[in-house]
C-alpha cells in the first residue's frame, strides 16, 4: 500500500488530535506546539467559552501540576485537568488573546516601552524562581502581550526541555541562571541594536558562559534594566567620569539648564562690568 505525502500529513494530524469524548470540551483548532505538548483551542460547552487546552504525555502530569500551582498575573492560569482515552493528560488554561512578543516588536514601539515590557516579563520569572521553578525555554514565541498590555509568559517547560538555539545557555544543568541567560537574549532581541552601553552590558552579563557570573535570578536583571531606564548606574557596567557626568546631566536636565542659565548670567554681568 502506498501512502501519499498528503495522506502522511493527514495521518500525523489525526493521530495527534485529542479524542475529547467524555469531556466537556469540543475541539476547535490547533494553536501551536511547544516542548511539552500541543495546544488547542477548545470550546467549553458548560461555560460556553473558548479555552486553551494543552495535551501532554502522561509523564508530564506532575510537571503540569507544578505549573498549575504558580499563581501570578504573568502566568496563564490553569482551569482544569483530565485524562484522555488514549492515556494522554490535558489541562485547560485561559485562552490568551494578543500578540506574540516577536509580532509585538514588529509594531515599532519606542525603546523605553520595550524595556519596561522586558521588566514586566521578568516579574513572573522572578516569582517562579522564588518557588524553585525554572522555565527552561524562554523565547519571544513564549511571551504574549495581551490586548490590554498584560504580559504573559507561557509554555513552562519545567522538566528536561532541550531549549531553543540563541536562548539556550551552554550548561546542561538548568536553574534560575539558565532562565537569566535566556532573558539576556530576550533583552538583546528587544533592544534591536538600539541599546546604550550599560544596557548592552546588562545583556552580556546575563549571557555570560559562566553561570556564576550572571545575575542570580530574574529579579536582579529586571532591577538593573529599570535602573538604566531611570538614569541610575547599573551593576553590570562601570562607567567613566565623563559618562557619569553625561548621565547626571541627562537625568537632571532642569537642574543642568538652571545651572547653565546661572553661569551665562554671571558671565554676562562680568562682561557688562568690564565695559
Amino acid at each position, binding site marked *: 500500500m502506498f501512502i501519499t*505525502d498528503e495522506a502522511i500529513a493527514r*495521518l*500525523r494530524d*489525526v*493521530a*495527534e488530535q485529542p*479524542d475529547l*469524548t467524555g469531556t466537556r470540551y469540543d475541539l476547535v483548532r490547533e494553536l501551536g*506546539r511547544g516542548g511539552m505538548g500541543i495546544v488547542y483551542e477548545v470550546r467549553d460547552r458548560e461555560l460556553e467559552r473558548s479555552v486553551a487546552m494543552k495535551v501532554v504525555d502522561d509523564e508530564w502530569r506532575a510537571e503540569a501540576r507544578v505549573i498549575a500551582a504558580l499563581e501570578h498575573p504573568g502566568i496563564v492560569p490553569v482551569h482544569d485537568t483530565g485524562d484522555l*482515552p488514549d492515556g494522554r493528560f490535558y489541562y485547560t488554561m485561559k485562552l490568551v488573546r494578543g500578540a506574540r512578543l516577536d509580532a509585538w516588536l514588529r509594531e515599532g514601539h519606542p525603546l523605553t516601552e520595550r524595556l519596561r515590557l522586558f521588566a514586566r516579563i521578568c516579574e513572573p520569572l522572578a516569582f517562579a524562581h522564588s518557588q524553585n521553578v525554572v522555565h527552561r525555554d524562554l523565547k519571544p514565541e513564549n511571551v504574549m502581550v495581551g490586548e490590554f498590555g498584560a504580559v504573559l509568559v507561557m509554555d513552562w517547560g519545567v522538566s528536561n526541555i532541550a531549549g531553543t538555539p540563541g536562548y539556550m545557555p551552554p550548561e546542561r544543568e538548568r536553574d534560575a541562571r539558565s532562565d537569566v541567560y535566556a532573558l539576556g537574549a530576550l533583552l538583546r532581541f528587544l533592544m534591536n541594536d538600539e541599546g546604550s552601553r550599560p544596557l548592552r552590558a546588562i545583556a552580556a552579563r546575563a549571557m555570560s558562559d559562566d553561570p556564576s557570573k550572571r545575575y542570580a535570578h530574574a529579579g536582579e536583571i529586571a532591577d538593573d534594566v529599570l535602573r538604566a531606564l531611570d538614569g541610575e548606574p547599573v551593576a553590570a557596567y562601570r562607567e567613566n567620569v565623563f559618562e557619569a557626568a553625561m548621565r547626571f546631566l541627562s537625568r537632571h536636565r532642569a537642574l543642568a539648564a538652571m545651572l547653565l542659565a546661572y553661569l551665562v548670567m554671571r558671565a554676562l554681568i562680568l562682561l557688562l562690568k568690564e565695559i
Partner: protein
Amino acid sequence: MTVAPFPTTRRSIVLALGSTDAAERERAFDTLVACYWKPLYKFARVAWSKSREDAEDLTQSFFTRAFEKESLASYDPAKASFRTFLRLLFERHVTNEWKAGQRLKRGGGDVHLDFDSAEAEIGREAGGVNPEEYFHREWVRSMFALAVERLRTRCEAVPFAVFEAYDLDDDRGVSYRELAVRFGIAETQVTNYLHATRRKFREVVLEMLREVTASEEEFRSESRALLGGSR
C-alpha cells in the same frame, strides 16, 4: 526466511535481536525486515543512485549478512536511534560492496521482498530532499503503511472503510454526508467511526514504535520523529 506483514511481538525487537533464543531472534528479524526493507531499498535507489538490480542485491545481502553475522546486536542505544544505526550500517554495507566491486549472488536464504511495489512507489514520490531526510520520510511512509495494514485486521469493515475514504484517499472532496449515504449509516455514525478508528490508528503506531525501539527515551524521540509533534 519469509517476511510477515508486521508480526506483533509485544516487546522490543531491538532487544530481541540479541536474544539467545533462535526462534525469538528470527521473529524479531522478520519484523525488522518488514519495517525497514523498503526505506533501505529506496535509499539505495534514490540517494545512492543504484540500479534496480544493484539496489535489490544490496538490500537482500544487507539483511542476509546482518542475520548471519548478528551485527545488529552491536547496537548501542546510548549512541543513536536504532533507525540511524541501521542507516549507517547500510551505508557502510553499500560502500564495502562497491569497493569489493562485485555483485553478490543471491543465496537460498534470501528474504523475499516485493521490489516491484517499491519501484512503483519511487515513481510517485516528490523529490528535492537530502538523503537523510529521504530515508526518514520513507521510514515514516513504511511505518504508516504497516500500521494501516495492522489497523485493517483490527477493525470492522465499515469503520475502516470510512477511515480509508476520509483520511487516506487523496480525494478530499468527500463529505460526512456522502460517506453516510455510501455506507448506509447515519452522519453521526461516520464521525463516531472516524474518531474510534483514528484513536486505534494512533494506538497501533505507538505499539509498533515500542517494538522497534530499545528504550523509553528512544521510543519518545522516535514518536516525535514519526508523528512530528508533542510525543
